[in-house]
């Protein structure tokens, strides 16, 4: 019962704030709702028993990416944006695509109807750590390389413009 309440409230939070993200006219509000939605996903992770994923989601997405996007919005936003439409003319097509895709996805989801978790969730951080420094060592290192590349790339892109507009 408690699990159901938690799940439904978190699902509602996630979906409603996601809808707010894509529909609100004010981009600042959008990005704030993004943080909320991501936090809701973190909650879903917690309800799935993925403790480390929960922590990572909070740290990377909610406190990292959402804030970063908020900064970007504030950096690039203008007052006139508030009076402009934020949704383009493609929305009927998009809606159609989403409906069709939704039908397919729900069909897939229905395939897994009735599967419940039999055992209580266990903490997985230790196992993840072992996996990452064991079998997944190579992807782990590659991802760190990708992060380094992203770091350098970001610096590079921003720097070259920075010299033109001091």
């Amino acid at each position, binding site marked *: 019962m408690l699990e159901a309440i938690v799940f439904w409230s978190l699902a509602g939070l996630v979906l409603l704030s996601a809808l707010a993200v894509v529909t609100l006219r004010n981009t600042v509000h959008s990005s704030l709702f*993004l943080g909320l939605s991501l936090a809701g996903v973190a909650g879903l992770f917690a309800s799935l028993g993925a403790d480390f994923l929960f922590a990572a989601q909070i740290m*990377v997405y909610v406190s990292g990416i959402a804030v970063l996007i908020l900064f970007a919005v504030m950096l690039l936003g203008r007052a006139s944006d508030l009076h402009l439409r934020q949704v383009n003319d493609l929305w009927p097509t998009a*809606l159609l695509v989403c409906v069709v895709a939704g039908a397919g996805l729900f069909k897939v989801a229905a395939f897994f109807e009735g599967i419940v978790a039999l055992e209580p969730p266990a903490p997985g951080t230790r196992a993840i750590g072992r*996996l990452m420094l064991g079998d997944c060592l190579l992807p782990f290192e590659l991802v760190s390389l990708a992060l380094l590349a992203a770091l350098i790339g970001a610096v590079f892109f921003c720097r070259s413009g920075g010299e033109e507009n001091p």
Partner: protein
Amino acid sequence: MTLAHYLAVAALLFLVGLFGALTRRNIIGILMSIELMFNAANLNLAAFDRFLHPGGVAGQTLALFTITVAAAEVVVGLALLLAIYRGAGTVYVEDYNLLKG
């Protein structure tokens, strides 16, 4: 709660993200929508891990990698966005029409 519930939530989240990516005029909005889709995928991974592979962490680990790559993607994306904004002076994607044939 069954696996189907989680998958349904993830599917809806993904569709919302897809809708946003297709319709938002603001490029930052598109970026945010893409993040939503990433999260839907991560949710799927975590759910499958919990329900179909009890006691295992492979799905969570994969989700962690996704989060990492997504972080890198956002960083580079925002940097590119800043660069584009400097050049084009706008954040509305219909003005980015260098590819127009």
